[in-house]
């Protein structure tokens, strides 16, 4: 066990260091005061989070760690079914990483927006096929995760118009417009941050 971990490849069960010298990161677990690798991969050292803290040791497996949505994650979902009080969605990406299998999620009426939650009409907020950015509220019930779009930056990010099938452009936080037929459709639109320097 050297003080400097280096970039050697490690296997599950390999001892990487002690808890006095390092903090456990991704792919690493602690047992009896030692840090042990949990996946096959390369070691990676990260600077300590706060001043005077211990450096964080990660093991980066190839292909990334198996990803499961957790409460607090911002996910990208595709709406599959819209009902009176809730709509069902398939979780396709967590953060910036795409999932290899889809998880089921549900956006309930009270989680669509933060104001006037009892007057929400689901069909005016989402339609089947829309791509929505949402946040995982909880692990939900046995069937699906509970999702919420009750923030300005959450909501529909991509939708096709019912008339022409063209991708619509956001007009306000409740409407989107089709560029070909100029029809306006209601959606709960996400306010994506405008990057400085872009028109």
């Amino acid at each position: 066990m050297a003080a400097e971990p280096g970039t050697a490849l490690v296997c599950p069960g390999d001892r990487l260091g002690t808890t006095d010298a390092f903090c456990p990161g991704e792919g690493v677990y602690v047992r009896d005061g030692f840090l042990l690798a949990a996946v096959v991969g390369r070691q990676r050292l990260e600077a300590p989070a706060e001043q005077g803290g211990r450096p964080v040791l990660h093991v980066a497996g190839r292909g990334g760690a198996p990803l499961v949505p957790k409460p607090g994650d911002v996910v990208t979902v595709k709406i599959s079914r819209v009902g009176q009080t809730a709509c069902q969605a398939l979780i396709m990406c967590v953060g910036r990483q795409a999932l290899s299998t889809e998880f089921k999620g549900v956006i309930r009426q009270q989680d669509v927006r933060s104001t006037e939650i009892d007057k929400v009409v689901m069909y005016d907020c989402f339609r089947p096929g829309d791509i929505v950015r949402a946040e995982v509220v909880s692990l939900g019930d046995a069937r699906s995760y509970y999702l919420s779009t009750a923030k300005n930056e959450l909501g529909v990010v991509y939708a096709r118009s019912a008339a022409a099938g063209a991708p619509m452009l956001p007009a306000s936080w409740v409407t989107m417009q089709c560029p070909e037929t100029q029809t306006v459709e209601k959606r709960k639109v996400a306010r994506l941050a405008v990057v400085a320097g872009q028109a």
Partner: protein
Amino acid sequence: MEYVSPEGLRLDGRRPRELRRINCQLDVLSNADGSAIFEMGNTKVLAAVFGPHAVTRRSDVREEGAVVVCEYSMAAFSTGERRRRGKGDRRSTELSLVIRNTLEQAIMTELLPRSQIDVYVQVLQADGGTRCAAINAAVLALAAAGVPLRDLVAACAAGHLDATPLLDLNYSEDAGGGPDLAVALAPRLDQLVLVQMDNRLPVDTFQAVLELAREGCRTISSVMRGALLEHTRRLALARGMAGSSA
């Protein structure tokens, strides 16, 4: 029948404490998340891992951790005479359960709540020690899939014939009527994960046979470790990442 000759050689020319030749191949299936073929002498086992993914049967969802589903089956051509075995075969069901219990202790299931990991093990050639080879192949496939593991669990069988503890029995020695002790060990943690025995063995000799099996497990785990590292190194080279320092 004589299983250990006066010179100390077994039926296939091995010494009592010798393992058979081990060969590991990784990432043999492209559609599985992780796969491996583990060969121990003539015994050849293929393992495929799918997951973690959403649980298929909603009633099986576990909040505390992942559900591990394991299926063990033997190909019809795996034994001496071709015999078509059904899925519900008693031996297959028992071995599926044994392998599942072993893997559940090796996988860090608490990191992947509400998900399911499928492990399929298929015996391609059977010559004794199939359950141990199945566990080894499954652990290699899980490591190749990136599923977090506590340790590289390895399994090995040992027996006791002609008053000698024998390591890694092949089919003829297994059929010899002596005890067959299958052991799975987590070598870095030095913990036994599986201990299963067929037949009878006096308590005084049990310790010696168990210790021999544990030694075998440690050796097999280091061979598996070498194969995993070599495969990852070759992959990194192929992707042009060799020489990139952290």
